[in-house]
């Protein structure tokens, strides 16, 4: 029976007095990829912060593999197999590439995904991103934007997660690098990892995602699948301003 890897139900979140997420609900199925779309300020990154425990919801619930994690600290949620590739990379600039990966290394938790896959190590991350292997002793601050993004993904993988949250991994990257990053994301999906991919560019998400959720002003505007959405220009124009 299919289980939910991560779900938000009726989540309300605030920044101070600003009501940023209003009754947001969506579910990420196990070994599936959910594309989270929306314009700037729609609440996509806030959803990721809530899911990771970086922002506590005032109402509603967050659950990971059926267990309620609402109000849990980020380290407790990470311990349940959730990892975040944050917007803007946020790598440790004063550490070397190898140290960035070493810091994040954790044993896999007991999950279906972990049981069917060899754990991630520095070597396997270097195999996936050979460019990082070439720069293993270089300070992370001296990497290009694309390499920093690869490092951010590699660092998240070192935690051997079962659920990967990726917040705008294509942001600020050249088209060729975006293609490389998306190829990596495809590989991760094929490996059976449950992924939420946050993007502003719907074309990138439509190619890889199984399910799509579009946020508009902090609310879920559309929950559908890529095939159906591709046919619905009116909805895309209304909520994303494209097509």
């Amino acid at each position, binding site marked *: 029976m299919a289980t939910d890897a991560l779900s938000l139900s009726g989540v309300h979140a605030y920044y101070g007095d600003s009501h940023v997420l209003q009754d947001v609900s969506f579910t990420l199925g196990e070994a599936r990829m959910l594309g989270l779309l929306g314009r700037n300020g729609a609440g996509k990154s806030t959803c990721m912060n809530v899911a*990771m*425990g*970086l922002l506590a919801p005032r109402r509603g619930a967050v659950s990971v593999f059926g267990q309620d994690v609402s109000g849990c*600290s*980020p*380290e407790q949620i*990470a*311990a349940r197999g959730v*990892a*975040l590739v*944050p917007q803007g990379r*946020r790598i*440790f*600039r*004063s*550490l070397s590439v190898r*140290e*960035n990966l*070493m*810091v*994040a*290394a*954790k044993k896999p938790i007991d999950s279906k995904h972990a049981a069917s896959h060899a754990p991630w190590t520095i070597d396997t991350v270097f195999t996936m991103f050979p460019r990082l292997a070439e720069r293993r002793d270089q300070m992370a601050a001296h990497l290009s934007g694309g390499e920093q993004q690869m490092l951010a993904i590699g*660092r998240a993988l070192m*935690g051997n997660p079962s659920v990967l949250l990726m917040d705008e991994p294509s942001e600020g990257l050249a088209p060729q690098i975006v293609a490389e990053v998306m190829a990596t994301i495809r590989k991760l999906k094929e490996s059976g990892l449950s992924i939420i991919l946050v993007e502003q560019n719907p074309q990138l998400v439509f190619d890889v995602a199984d399910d799509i959720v579009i946020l508009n002003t902090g609310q879920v505007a559309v929950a559908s699948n890529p095939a159906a959405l591709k046919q619905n220009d009116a909805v895309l124009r209304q909520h994303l301003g494209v097509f």
Partner: protein
Amino acid sequence: MTLRNLAIVIALLALVALPYWMPGIYYINVGSQILFYAIFALGLNVLVGYAGLVSLGHAGLFGISAYATGYMLQLGFGHPMAIVTALIIGIISTAIFAVLSLRSSGIGFIMITLALGQILWGLAYRWISLTGGDNGINVPARPVLFGYSLGNAVTFYYTTLVVFLLVLLVMAVFVRSPFGAALMGTRDQPRRMNALGYHVLAIRFWACLFSGLLTSVSAILFVYYTQFISPQTLSLTSSAEVLLMVISGGPGTLLGPIMGAGLVVVVKTVVSGFIERWNFLLGAIFVAIVILMPEGIVPGSARLWRLATRKRKGGTTS
């Protein structure tokens, strides 16, 4: 052999041969002082350089271990017992210090450590029955190690050197360990470390304990060197001095605090014999370092060296 390894071998040889090329006992003692203050600075560097936590109360922890050693010896206990007790008391005090001060970071951490340091300084002055007040505590004699009396300046220097090299080795392993990398991660991005599954407060707490251990080791060497401990050792000036060693040498580097300790001790002990206003000179040197090498002597010199070699190469090719 690389240039770096060659420099390490030369530095080691120079340290080992120091009693033979130094002009007299006085300068050998200056060498001992540099070494144990370097251990103190390396201890503080764990917090300042690797954890991003600036402490202005470390002289208080230093003083606790020094007083513990002196008090135990005064009570008639042997040297091993005095040393072990001083280490244990030092670590327990650091744990209390950490629990109180780690509730905050940044300016808050500085202010709490400053306040705790001042409380300990005040206690050292006022708790006369325990500390002897302004008169301090005298340490009757230095220990005898494997038949060699540490009362001899050369023997004391070599003992300090062995402890210093051990501390340096431990520090080198620590910096390259996963824990060292995690500590630097909490310095750079504590929120990110949280999201990676780390308990930032716990990492900082263990770093404090490690820093406290090194501080205690240096305090024990200090009290055996001076054979006397008084409240002056716990003063804010002492905390500022060791912070100056770390910042001037280069926080977050292995060599920086050692260079900083060398600079401060030499100005304080040797130069002060020739210049009455040595404090002015030390201040001027510090201002010059901040202006010319804000990252500290060691990383700053490395940067200037790279710049010079690049220019030279550029000049050659053009």
